[in-house]
């Protein structure tokens, strides 16, 4: 393991919600990248449509942010943290399947500039999140 890589990662914190979102927060920029979890994409099946918020939208934790739809059903996405939507993943419009192939990386949904970074501490760690769907 290279020490440099560990230090880079320290600036990033990943936290999860019970609604199957994950926020990858960079405390240098104050921006969190919002995705759905790998577990969520596997339950949803083939994602065929993603509705995302407008860039510039101010959201509060728990507000509806958009939706991810498979042929069978629509799943709402809620804002895991409060802040301003800085960027959305435009490639999802033409390639919604990225959510299945790479949910937490290439299939990211949007970037939110957190208004209150301490909200991150109230979200779940991976182990806590995992225990919500594993008996």
């Amino acid at each position, binding site marked *: 393991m290279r020490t440099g890589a560990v230090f880079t990662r320290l600036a990033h914190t990943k936290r999860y919600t019970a609604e199957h979102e994950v926020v990858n927060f960079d405390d240098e920029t104050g921006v969190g990248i919002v995705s759905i979890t790998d577990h969520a994409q596997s339950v949803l*099946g*083939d994602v*065929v*449509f993603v*509705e995302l918020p407008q860039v510039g939208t101010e959201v509060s934790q728990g507000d*509806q942010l958009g*939706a991810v*739809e*498979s*042929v*069978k*059903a*629509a799943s*709402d996405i809620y804002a895991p943290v409060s802040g301003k939507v800085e960027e959305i993943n435009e490639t999802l419009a033409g390639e919604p399947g990225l959510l*299945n192939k790479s949910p937490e990386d290439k299939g990211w949904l949007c970037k939110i500039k957190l208004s209150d970074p301490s909200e991150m501490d109230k979200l779940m760690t991976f182990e806590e999140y995992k225990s919500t769907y594993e008996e």
Partner: protein
Amino acid sequence: MVPFAGYSMPLSYGDVGQVASHHYVRTKVGLFDVGHMVQSNFRGKTATEFLEWLTPSSLSSLKPYSSTLSVLLNDKGGIIDDTIITKHAQDAFYVVTNAGRRDEDLSWFAQKLEEWNSGDRGKDGPVEHEVLEGWGLLALQGPEAASYLQGLTSFDLRQLTFGTSAFVPIEGFNLHVARGGYTGEDGFEISVPPSQTVEVAQLLSRPPVQLAGLGARDSLRLEAGMCLYGNDLDETTTPVEAGLSWVIGKERKENGGFIGAEIVLKQLKEGPSRRRVGLIVEGVPARQGAKIYTPLGHEEQQQLGVVTSGIPSPTLGKNIAMGYIQSGWHKKGTEVAVEVRKQLRKAVLTPMPFYKPNYWRG
């Protein structure tokens, strides 16, 4: 796996996703296990008359070994269930009804049989109802279904056109095969005695046949414009409102004589107040329960109806939906608005089926 009508059923099989499975049935061949559906026989000298009392179909003029879509109606003309009725003879019918309506249907049959057999009409010859408990039902569907099945039988399947059925020898089994299905593709529904279900299912699921689940079944039927009981049909909906007037026999439209006829004939004459329609919704899929409103920019926002089924169509790449709308707004090409996630979205009334079926008509 999901719970469905008391069964645990797969939405999809293995790692084949719903969309891939849907395309596979449209282009090749898939096998659906629909053994949860309720299969029945009605036998007896007055079986035709009895079923013509329970449904608005013309069964006396139906040819032997032919099937028709039909509806069981209550006193108000509301649909208790939709069903496929196959006539074997004047005194013998094979009927398939929905698993989700099993309790309602069976108690309705029992109640009406008792009434019939103890009344004047049943005295000429009582009718017996037998539920085929434990029987399997397999739906082989897709453009390659016929060539696959032909490889297992000496019976010339070209003779078996859409809407007809026959007992077909399949590798030593003698099975009731009805040409049709719930996908809009050519295909067969094969009824299997309890002791042969596993063997026949194995026989019918060799490559290139792919097993297909409830997920693909729903998206295929919706593209084909077919109703799902519980979504698109219920006991408060009449066949006239549901766009199913075509299942009502010609002379039955004049003479009635079936349960619910009073309201159905009145609606046929005066027109229903709401109608089932197809919609294409711009931008986002509209799901069951989405409200239909007057078009964007219309002076007064007024609710016109509701969506009963909706999906992003895998074949068409558009968001298709069916629902009920006030008469007057039901013409094709009419623009309306549908509410999804608190936003009104443009939608256009579109004739169904959304996908043109490929049936074998000989």
